[in-house]
């Protein structure tokens, strides 16, 4: 799990090296992967089946709040990144980076949000395209502070 400190350090590095950070998130990240364990959950409050009110739902994919959820998403994502020749941070395992010539691309995973930045804008665009091809992702947006936090 990403620590807030790690995000702050990334923000600091970005402002020091003067590069822009971008953000993208995964649409229903937690639903992307099938779970191996047998998990049964109650029918949703207010939406119980009239005919089968005693039935329960057997999960095929993870739901929010399930402890398997963040982990299985993280596993799938990190496998993909490593395949794309990223290195995983030794201290913070949710920080990935990739060097290419003189440039470097940082990718910080924050549950279903991904914050990334590079000394070379092209690397960011390339990363964004790759991610969109592999996962159901939102477009990359520049990371800005929402109005209410200014």
């Amino acid at each position, binding site marked *: *799990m*990403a*620590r*807030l400190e790690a995000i702050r350090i990334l923000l600091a590095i970005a402002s020091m090296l003067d590069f822009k950070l971008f*953000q993208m*998130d995964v649409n*229903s990240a937690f*639903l992307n992967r099938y779970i191996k364990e047998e*998990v*049964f*959950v*109650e*029918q*949703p*409050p*207010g*939406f119980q*089946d009239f005919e*089968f009110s*005693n*039935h*329960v*739902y*057997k*999960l*095929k*994919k993870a*739901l*929010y*709040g*399930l*402890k398997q959820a*963040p982990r299985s998403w993280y596993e799938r994502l990190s496998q993909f990144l490593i395949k794309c020749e990223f290195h995983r941070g030794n201290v913070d395992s949710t920080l990935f980076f990739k060097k290419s010539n003189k440039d470097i691309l940082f990718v910080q995973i*924050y*549950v*279903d*949000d991904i914050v990334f930045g590079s000394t070379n804008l092209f690397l960011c665009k390339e990363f964004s395209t790759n991610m969109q091809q592999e996962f159901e992702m939102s477009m990359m947006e520049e990371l*800005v502070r*929402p*109005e*209410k936090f200014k």
Partner: protein
Amino acid sequence: MAFVFKIEPKTVDDAFKDENWYLAMQDELNQFKRNEVWDLVPQHQNQQVIGTKWVFRNKLNDSGCIVKNKARLVVKGYSKKRELTMIKPMHLWLG
């Protein structure tokens, strides 16, 4: 969605009083159907069944205006690690 409801309901009963929140819950369940999230099966004895709960949040845009009523179905009390629920206090809904 043209109209959104400002108050985030605390209970499912409150949510049922407003059409937008009702639609938000249906959206979530439709998404489960599309993604093949679960199957309805008969309950067996000695089977651990985890409770579910609705969480209602307004999604804001960059200027802080409500753009969407989002209902999310979550499982209760299975996640023992506090950090998982605590680490992303605002981001979860704004992101």
